């Protein structure tokens, strides 16, 4: 099935930018060594040091970058609304920790779950095509549940979690509306702006909700230490990177890039487009939510303007664009660049974000493959090439390749 996508595509049209992919061979010893160094780093630089905090920020932005890279770089869905998941995840954690009186760590998983649930809501109706009847059923059920809830709280006012008639109706209407919205049907600029609008709408709802502190936000009890956050962020990053690596080298991952490169062709070749897109969108939201949970444990205070700010999207876009869209190592390298420029240089000279903005435009114009794209491009022509199997070079040309080779090893080859 997958091999069919190679036919008729020239070398230039392969991958998201053109022959993009990681052909560079990363020796396992390097990965193990790096992980080991990062594990012992706290004992070297000190558990309370600023350097450790910088490293933790790098991990968090790398996770956020991974999440966005999955949907934008691998699936071709350009979203400017990741801040919706950051806000929903962060607030879910803060609400549970505050009203449930549980520790922040116990509340942490809810940040991922809430963000994933919200993403799932956005993916509804799951079938992008011929979905009108499902929408009607779904909306009917949701509205009936809503009416039931209104009836319930008219008898038991204490059961109302919204504590304000207007906010209750606003949030429930928003949820029903977002559930009925076929977001996955939208493409290109429409998808980009729609995700942005959704984040703004959710932000507006949180801004008026007294339970979540309205505009003033909420405070998380700061019982976590920097050392705990560091190790959890590192573990999460390692897990996410591994999952994405395995995923992108599996049938599912290949199906994903096939959808990105030609959705209709993928559909007609038997890829369940809606299911694959939904899976990647929900997974991306879940890890964004988890990273956001860790981030707000660190900064302690969460407010709607900070959690739903469009500057999140700007930061994440830079991380991925600088590192290389559609590559697995890209977000890792991009996060290092981002934190170094924004946190370190920005703190010294100011204008960190201005530099980042200019840099991201220059990168898009002249190095659209990002840093990792350039490195893997160089390695194609350098001595590294001998690490690649002989078949690889035939595949990467993309000429009548796939009959015998059904599982290309490199992502750029489909």
């Amino acid at each position, binding site marked *: 099935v997958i091999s069919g996508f190679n036919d008729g595509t020239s070398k*230039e049209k392969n991958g998201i930018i053109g022959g993009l992919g990681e052909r560079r061979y990363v020796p396992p010893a390097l990965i193990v060594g790096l992980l080991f160094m990062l594990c012992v780093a706290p004992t070297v630089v000190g558990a309370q040091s600023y350097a450790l905090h910088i490293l933790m920020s790098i991990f968090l932005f790398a996770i956020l970058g991974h999440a966005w890279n999955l949907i934008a770089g691998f699936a071709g869905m350009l979203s400017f609304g990741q801040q919706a998941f950051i806000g929903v995840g962060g607030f879910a954690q803060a609400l549970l920790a505050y009203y449930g009186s549980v520790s922040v760590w116990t509340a942490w998983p809810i940040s991922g779950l809430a963000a994933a649930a919200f993403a799932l809501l956005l993916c509804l109706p799951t079938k992008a095509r011929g979905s009108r009847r499902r929408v009607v059923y779904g909306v009917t059920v949701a509205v009936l549940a809503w009416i039931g809830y209104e009836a319930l709280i008219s008898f038991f006012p204490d059961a109302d979690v919204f504590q304000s008639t207007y906010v209750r109706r606003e949030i429930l209407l*928003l949820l029903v509306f977002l559930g009925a*919205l076929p977001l996955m*049907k939208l493409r290109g600029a*429409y998808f980009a*702006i729609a995700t942005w609008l959704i984040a703004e*709408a959710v932000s*507006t709802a949180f801004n008026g909700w007294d339970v979540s502190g309205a505009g003033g936000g909420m405070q998380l009890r700061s019982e976590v230490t920097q050392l705990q956050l560091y190790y959890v962020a590192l573990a999460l990053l390692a897990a996410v990177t591994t999952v994405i690596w395995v995923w992108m080298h599996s049938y599912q991952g290949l199906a994903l890039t096939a959808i990105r490169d030609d959705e209709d062709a993928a559909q007609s070749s038997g890829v369940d487009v809606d299911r694959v897109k939904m899976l990647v969108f929900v997974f991306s939201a879940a890890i964004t939510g988890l990273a956001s949970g860790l981030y707000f444990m660190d900064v302690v205070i969460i407010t709607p303007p900070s959690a739903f700010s469009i500057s999140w999207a700007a930061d994440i876009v830079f991380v991925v664009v600088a590192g290389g869209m559609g590559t697995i190592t890209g977000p890792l390298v991009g996060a290092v660049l981002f934190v170094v420029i924004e946190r370190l240089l920005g703190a010294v000279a100011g204008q960190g974000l201005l530099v980042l903005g200019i840099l991201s435009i220059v990168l898009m114009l002249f190095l659209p493959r990002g840093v990792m794209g350039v490195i893997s491009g160089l390695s194609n022509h350098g001595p590294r090439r001998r690490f690649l199997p002989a078949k690889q070079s035939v595949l990467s040309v993309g000429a009548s390749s796939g009959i015998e080779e059904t599982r290309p090893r490199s992502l750029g080859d489909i």
Partner: protein
Amino acid sequence: VIDPYWALIDLANGILTGTMLGGSYALISIGLALNFGVMRLVNLSHGDWLIVAAYLCVAALSAFPVSPFAAPVVVVPIMFGIGYALQRGLLNRISVQATERKGMSPVFAIMLPLLVTFGLSIVVSQGLLAVFSADAVTIKNDLSFSSISLTDDLSISLLRFGFFVAASVLIGLLAAWMRLTHVGRAIRAAADDPEVAALMGMRTPHVYAVASGLSLASSAIAGFMIGMLRSFQPFDGSPFLLTAFGVVVIGGLGSLGGCLAGGIILGIVQVLAGTYFGAGAQQMGGYLFILLVLAVRPQGLFARKAVS
């Protein structure tokens, strides 16, 4: 008990205020519609250029303290120049044709302009912050509280009415200019088919740059309006972008007349939502309405082709 007279006044007031608000919405979306209609470019930095124009008006007026209405005379040509240069220097390099020449995949060709203009939006707003600081400013004028009384209980703001007229006139002029002048015809030709237009001997990069200059020139008038009506800060651009995009989508992509219709519809929806469901619902109602149109009729409520 609902008094039918006041219910009627509420409704009439909502529609009237909404229509006037729609005029401002139309004004802020003309630039985006031009970009979209001619270059097929969704310029995500559009909102920030409005704020740039507003700041330029304030700066011009602090240098030459004359009537505020003289500010656009200076700012419109400056913004036209910025638009022309921006298109020649940056945006022409990320057009669909340019990405095809570079051999990039079609998926990336869709993403590149969005990513670059999104980056541009950060650069512009951060640049404004660096130059003008984060303090809220406004264009001082003595018309802010003037209004026209229609009946004892109905009145509209004089400024809003003025800008509604300005939006209608500007749209009419632009549409006539597109139809009647040589350059206007060239822009329409390049919008319809850039390759054939180039084969006919048109310098499409120049034509696009003129269109982009016009887009920012109309944004200059919109920025002037923003400064006259409210106070603003360097980061206020993105809500205007979202509103303008909504207006352009509702009105039918890239159609200039559609801007006015889309603006008025969005304005009325927002004001009525605010009237009947409380002030907070105004913003939310607008967002939901735009999302609804995006989902149900992405070609716009009055589907039309290209730029009128």
